[in-house]
């Protein structure tokens, strides 16, 4: 699947949701009317970011504390120094008029 679609209503505010896709696991975070999608693994070690906390527009890796910006995937500081992949999301409407989120898996921020 090159895109992943889910209903906006299924995503709770500020709570990470994991989507299992052909491109690996993606963590999806909704903040009000915006939705962010990032690769669900810390760039420093094999730890899922979805198990961490969200604060100040970043998600934190719980094991060593690096925080990744939700928009750009850039880490706040060591031990991570490489960014995580982010995917563009768009919000549209399904045939029933419900808001849906489309995540484009073919356009990762880092090819």
């Amino acid at each position, binding site marked *: 699947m090159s895109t992943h679609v889910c209903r906006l209503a299924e995503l709770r505010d500020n709570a990470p949701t994991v989507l299992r896709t052909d491109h690996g696991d993606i963590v999806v975070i909704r903040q009000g009317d915006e939705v962010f999608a990032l690769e669900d693994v810390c760039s420093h*070690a094999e730890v899922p970011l979805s198990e961490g906390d969200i604060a100040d527009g970043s998600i934190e890796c719980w094991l060593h504390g690096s925080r990744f910006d939700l928009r750009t995937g850039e880490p706040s500081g060591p031990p991570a120094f490489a960014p995580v992949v982010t995917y563009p999301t768009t919000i549209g409407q399904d045939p029933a008029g419900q808001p849906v989120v489309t995540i484009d898996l073919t356009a990762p921020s880092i090819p």
Partner: protein
Amino acid sequence: MGVSDNAVQQTLAGTRSFDVADFAVPTGREEVWRFTPKAAFKPLFDDAPSDGQLAWETSLPAGVTLTEVSAEAAAAASPGAPIDRVAVLAAKHSGTAMRLHIPAEADLREPVVVNLTGVDAGRVVWGQLLIEVGHHASATIVLRHAGAAHYGSFTSVSVGDGASLDLVSLQEWDDEAVHAGHVSTRLGRDARMRSIVVSLGGIVRLVNTVDYAAPGGDAELLGAFFAGAGEHLEHRILVDHNQPHCRSNVVYKGALAGDKAHAVWIGDVIIRADAVGTDTYELNRNLLLTDGARADSVPNLEIQTGDVVGAGHASATGRFDDEQLFYLQARGIPSPVARRLVVRGFFADVVRRIGSDEIEAEIMRSIDGQLATLDDGADAEMIAAYETVFSELVESSVA
């Protein structure tokens, strides 16, 4: 005989079992799985059969037999049990096992060659192999893995009393291959094994465990690996000195080049309370050739008696030494050629012990191929000219 009861809790030994229930699906928080990219290995954690096969091609000297036996017979004959989930699933779902038998007192002049090729990338293949070297036999076995598949394997190796085995395992997989395997070896009285593991491609996680049935065993575990961009090469060793007066020596050398190249080396050695006279050493050296590469290297020693000949470990991970590069450049050797010389020298003392000129040349060619991806706009003809000069120099110096 063997291990006596003591109050110290074993921590490195791990669970060994043929029962799938003893191995839960890894979460990644377990010590033995925390460096592994779980997503890549996910199909090999599924407790499901598969009729995928690798293509087999063998060359067997006279007297050596390769037969198909039932998985139950192989499990019964196996000197050790699987150490992780992939190995136990391989033993369960392989259906039948291949039994390679070298008769007692055989003195093989030619190596036993087994070429295993993955023909269907993404297809799960379960394999179980039983290698038996009869007492006082002397043999070289070469296992070559190529192509692509999701291959989970459990191999058990039994080296009889006084026997000598050189076991070469080459992982020359395509980029899409995923290989997780456990090789479990037991050495008999005064038996000798030299294991050489060379991993050059694919996503690989190999566990090599060695223990001893009687005193006098000698295990030499050598490894060479080259992780390119995006590759993950993981080698885990466990040597359990459960008998007195045995020897082990572990030398693994790896080079990494490219973004997200990742190598993992874990060397566990246990010296049990009555393993007096043990002589053991392990070392891992990693050479990082570019930014973005990462090497995790963890030697562990668990020592329950100090009455030993020696026990040591060493780990060094570093980048290409600027002083060595300057030395060579100051003598007119351009940096791509200098890099090749240094990397070849780095691997030489492991690769030259393989004992087969043909295989050694094959490995060095593959390493050269990986190094060639680092040359940006360098003149291929110029490099080839230097190659000729240097190989002639080497030839004339060893003549």
